């Protein structure tokens, strides 16, 4: 019988301990990071997350324990092997660490100028392309001190990605950003990760948004790794840390957006369903902003997030009137729970919603996203409903059914093309 192949971690920590002046910052940390995945480290401030990242890039060395790279001890690796490994990593610092005496262009070009033999034309082309992707074209000749915190973050992001690294470490890439920019940066990271296939390790407090782009979650508390697994597994993770840290962030997020976290959404579902008689009907509607990646590419990640946010608010407002409540299901999807509707009524509600959306709703969304009619772009909104019975199936299963039955309910067309 053939045994199933074990996936070898790209980076593995084995009982790693780090102390600063007798204070243990990392305590017997065991973790695995797999190639091509987005791994997010979450935890309260001062629990050793940045220290952990700095061990991966070699800025710090452990007091005890081992770091394995492709199963090989980093300590015992040859100088050449270590150099080769470190060359593949890029690091985006929490406070950006930009060179304040250099312009934005020079900052981004620095690693190419200093570590490669590329011609100045090639460097210029690569840097300009990155600047365009991160919406920094106008800031090319400016110094970091002349930029807002958000722009500085994007410069740091461009500099981290300009060398096309295989592993990128992001130390709180969204700190100090507003909600739209925060999601824009996360979606940018997700898009680049898909596009270039690098392994990303993120430290983030953007719960739950960061779960949508992550393959694995690592939770840290007091220097210890308390959870490792998929975002889905994390949803079922019971620990005081979850109540203390994750829920408090989710509540804040809900307060700011009106859109509930997945966890909160599930709790409200359960409460709503428990009040129903067994086999009583309810419905779930699922909305998808189609071709979201192309939209971001075309309008920029910030505008893309603004469209998504405006759509979420619009859905929440519309279905709130009939007792519904919504959550963000994935990067470009919203799920709405309709506790007092059966399938027929939900279909009618969806049809009305589609008509309203095409009639004036899209205009509202575009206005809220600061999109003027001169900008040429297209996107479609898909909607689908499914019915569930109290006490029967899990809400996730009903959402999946709604996704299968999705059809186009509204579309924005490029006026210039018509």
């Amino acid at each position, binding site marked *: 019988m053939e045994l199933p192949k074990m996936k070898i971690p790209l980076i593995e920590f084995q009982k790693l301990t780090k102390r600063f002046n007798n204070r243990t910052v990392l305590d017997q940390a065991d973790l695995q990071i797999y190639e091509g995945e987005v791994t997010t480290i979450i935890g309260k401030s001062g629990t050793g997350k940045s220290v952990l990242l700095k061990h991966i890039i070699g800025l710090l060395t452990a007091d005890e324990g081992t770091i394995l790279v492709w199963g090989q001890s980093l300590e015992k690796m040859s100088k050449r092997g270590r150099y080769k490994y470190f060359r593949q990593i890029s690091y985006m610092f929490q406070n950006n*660490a930009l060179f304040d005496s250099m312009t934005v262009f020079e900052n981004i070009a620095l690693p190419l100028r200093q570590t490669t033999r590329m011609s100045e034309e090639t460097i210029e082309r690569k840097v300009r392309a990155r600047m365009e992707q991160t919406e920094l074209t106008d800031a090319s000749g400016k110094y970091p001190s002349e930029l807002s915190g958000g722009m500085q973050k994007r410069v740091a992001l461009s500099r981290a990605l300009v060398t096309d690294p295989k592993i990128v470490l992001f130390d709180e890439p969204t700190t100090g950003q507003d909600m739209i920019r925060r999601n824009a940066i996360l979606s940018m990271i997700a898009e680049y990760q898909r596009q270039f296939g690098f392994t990303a390790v993120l430290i983030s407090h953007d719960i739950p948004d960061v779960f949508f782009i992550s393959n694995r979650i690592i939770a840290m508390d007091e220097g210890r790794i308390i959870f490792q697994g998929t975002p889905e597994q994390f949803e079922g993770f019971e620990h005081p840390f979850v109540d203390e840290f994750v829920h408090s962030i989710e509540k804040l997020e809900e307060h700011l957006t009106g859109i509930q976290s997945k966890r909160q959404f599930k709790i409200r579902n359960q409460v709503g369903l428990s009040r129903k008689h067994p086999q009583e009907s309810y419905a779930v509607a699922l909305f998808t902003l189609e071709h979201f990646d192309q939209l971001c590419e075309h309008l920029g990640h910030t505008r893309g997030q603004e469209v998504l946010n405006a759509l979420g608010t619009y859905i929440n407002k519309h279905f709130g009137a009939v007792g519904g409540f919504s959550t963000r299901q994935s990067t470009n999807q919203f799920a709405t729970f309709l506790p007092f509707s059966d399938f027929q009524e939900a279909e009618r509600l969806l049809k009305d919603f589609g008509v309203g959306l095409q009639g004036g709703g899209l205009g509202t969304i575009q206005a809220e996203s600061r999109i003027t009619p001169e900008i040429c772009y297209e996107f479609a909104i898909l909607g689908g409903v499914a019915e569930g019975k109290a006490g029967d199936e899990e809400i996730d299963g009903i959402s999946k059914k709604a996704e299968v039955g999705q059809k186009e309910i509204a579309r924005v067309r490029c006026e210039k093309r018509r």
Partner: protein
Amino acid sequence: MDNQNLFTSPFDYLGRKVLTLISEMGAMVIFFMRGFLMIFRPKQVGMIIQHIYYIGATSATVVMLVGLFTGMVLGLELFHTLLRFGSTGVLGSAVAVALVRELGPVLAAIMITARAGSSMAAEIGVQRISEQIDALFTMRIDPVRYLISPRIAASIICFPMLTTFFDLVGILGGYFTGVVLLGLNYGTYFGRVQQSLEMEDITCGFVKSLVFAVIVSTVCCFQGFYTHMRRDSYGAKAVGLSTTSAVVMSCVLILLSDYVVSSLLV
């Protein structure tokens, strides 16, 4: 027991200080050697030119100004002293030898320390505390090669040049007070300068300026580079203290090494 502590504690303190000093000196020598060897790595020329401009061109005015007044004071004081012995004719020799062998290299080095050395320490210190040096490391750019080597190279090139300017302007300053203001003969002044200055004096001044270049660039860069290792302060305050330490230590070492080099070359 307490008495014993009272008796041994000054020695304990002194011993600790000496050991720290020796280990810091050792670290500085290694730091300099790394920095010096990396001068010859690729992609260094542009950065060396940038630092030559900063250390050399922008310091030239202040160095020449100090040189001018040093020469003028020397001319004035020596003229009146030599007048007592009736030998004002050797004013040119006294000014030239004093400037070329001793005052030129020392004062020029102290001025460059104040002007460029302090800024080297502060700039590198700020880069250290704002994680810019860590950022270089993560980009696989050796911080010593990128930040330290060009400064050492530029110092080695600029110090002798600035010392030469200092000497020339100083001799002209001596001429101004001795000849123009106090009426000494023009030919006597420059004749004595030419007669008394030997290649050995110029070599002595040149060697000193090279030694000072190594000391100033190494001490200032070292203090800035290891700002984060200071135990007495952190952050901006640490940068300030590193800059002060860099200037004080450079000046003390300039005078100390001046004596050592002089005694070796006399």
